[in-house]
């Protein structure tokens, strides 16, 4: 078992004929993912690495029973692509595209929710259920099946940490890159809930960073969980970022800084690694 991606996942790739789309379709196929369709308006009838290309999501879903989609289209077209996939009936949407205007994300997320669609991202490395399937751009060789879930706001930092886990013999159920944007489809807390419902996952690693209040909310949730949680927070020495007027300060009321996040985790009994390589050591301390 794993979360989000299972053996039943039939993946569609939106923007499959682009440079990124082609490259990562190959990698996802190599990983054993059932990539059943791709879309690229005007390119119907062609193939990318043996995957049939359709003009629209509707045709792709009708023709292949795709039930999940990964989006590689450029930012100005990503909202259109997301709504099209939701309308076509997929139940999982992974948006890799970065720099999507967040007003577009503000439109997509409530619509997806109303239609019962789970969105991961945008601006994320995707999802990998170790040994089963991958939707996104995470490097295949990093993962090894095992009992730990990973949730991360970052891309390369996730690779760094998963790599350390794999080297230490601590395999993964699923690694979820929830994305680094202010408006994302699945929050850290919601991703934690998914792992709580997965009997295979024996513990969860949270990779957070400064800004927003996702880590503080995740810490509060972790307190209620039986499954152990370990964390790392990037940006402890980063310069204070732009301040969003008074409104940002009023909303976060002191939260959002590295100190606030580390303290929230500590108060919830979640151990916080000082550097990425410490994550495997922390897991070992809990799970001898």
């Amino acid at each position, binding site marked *: 078992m794993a979360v989000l991606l299972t053996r039943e996942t039939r993946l569609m790739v939106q923007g499959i004929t682009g440079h990124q789309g082609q490259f990562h379709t190959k990698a996802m196929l190599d990983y054993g993912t059932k990539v059943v369709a791709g879309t690229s308006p005007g390119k119907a009838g062609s193939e990318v690495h043996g995957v049939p290309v359709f003009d629209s999501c509707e045709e792709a879903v009708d023709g292949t029973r795709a039930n999940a989609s990964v989006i590689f289209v450029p930012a100005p077209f990503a909202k259109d692509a997301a709504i099209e996939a939701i309308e076509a009936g997929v139940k999982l949407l992974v948006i890799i595209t970065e720099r999507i*205007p967040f007003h577009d994300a503000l439109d997509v997320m409530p619509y997806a929710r109303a239609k019962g669609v789970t969105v991961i991202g945008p601006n994320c490395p995707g999802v990998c259920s170790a040994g089963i399937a991958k939707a996104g751009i995470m490097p295949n060789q990093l993962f090894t099946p095992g009992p730990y879930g990973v949730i991360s706001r970052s891309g390369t930092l*996730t690779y760094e940490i998963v790599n350390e886990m794999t080297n230490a013999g601590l395999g993964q159920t699923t690694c979820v890159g929830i994305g*680094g944007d*202010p408006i994302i489809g699945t929050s850290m807390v919601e991703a934690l809930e998914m792992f709580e419902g997965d009997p295979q996952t024996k513990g969860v690693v949270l990779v957070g960073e400064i800004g927003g209040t996702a880590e503080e909310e995740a810490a509060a949730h972790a307190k209620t969980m039986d499954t152990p949680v370990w964390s790392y927070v990037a940006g402890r020495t*980063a310069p204070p970022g732009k301040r969003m*007027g008074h409104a940002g300060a009023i909303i976060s009321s002191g939260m959002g800084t590295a100190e606030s996040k580390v303290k929230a985790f500590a108060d919830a009994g979640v151990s916080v690694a000082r550097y990425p390589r410490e994550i495997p050591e922390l897991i070992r301390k809990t799970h001898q």
Partner: protein
Amino acid sequence: MKFYEYKAHEIFRKYGIPVPRGVLAAKPEDLAEPPLPCVVKAQVLIGGRGKAGGIKTAKTAEEARAAAQAILGMSIGPYTVRQVYAQELLDIAQELYLSVTIDRSARAPLLMASALGGMDIESVPPEKIVRIHIAPLIGLQPYVLRNLAKRLALPQEVATQVSDIAKKMYALFRGEDAELVEINPLAVLRDGRVVAGDAKLIVDDSAEYRHPEYADLPQDRTPLEEEAHDKGITFIQLDGDIGVIANGAGLTMATLDVLNLKGGRGGAFLDLGGTDDPEKVKQAFEILLKARPSVIFLNIFGGITKADTVALGVEQALRAFGSNVPVVARIKGVNEERARAILANAGMRSVETVEHGAELAVQLRGEH
């Protein structure tokens, strides 16, 4: 994207939000006929202007020009004041607060208002701030404005104006791809009018392509940061002395954290993103070298990035710029071994882990 006050006023006006009359001036003579009495304000992208002496009141045009003379050329934080804005002095009876921003947790726009606006808004007790989420797909419905007016407990004639301003602020928020639209204070004048006493506007950088009219507005970047921005490189100058090049925001921050743990301090950091194009790597080094770091720490974790291509870019850059700044490199990715050989031949230190790299960078800094 941030906006000077006068520019934000211009945009507010476009949406019909009442703002004070004002005149922009780059030299004192530009204030031939300022609105009187007026406040002459330094146009800079940071707060704290008042404390720095960048805001002065004037009763006559002569006083206004003298104030402009005093403020222009003044340093406020890292900025030199190039323009002042002479704005009609408001006769304020009450200061309110009004803003529209995003609430990440709720994934929705948030309208906030308070009858206790002004300087100390952050210390106003939470129960005195009205917060109303707005469903983005539905938009601002009239009931939101009715609830807002009722909860602020304002006299009818003031409430009507505040509701109208709130409605226009939301239109601006959506129409201009804003992250924040804030008026503090929203001034209730003695003559009964409600006017934006201040205007704060931040627009989403990712939406720049939809607003080409804002592309050339000055931002709060150092000249070197501006140069990097023009080349599409994420580069931030800090106050330490170790230059950091990494890929991805999270990994870049983690690299700075590890450096700090080992007793070093980042002097500038550059996020290379997902590239292994040697030309891009070369450009990155060119920018970073201009920040005069005592040592450069390169930390690349590339799942699909070709490590040897990155290494070639580094070698070419150092040769092209004749730099003798020591470089510590930690590159993970495809063809790692070949990358290490290239780096070693070029006299660079290649390490396996971030921690080791950070230690070595701190040590080399001490030797130079």
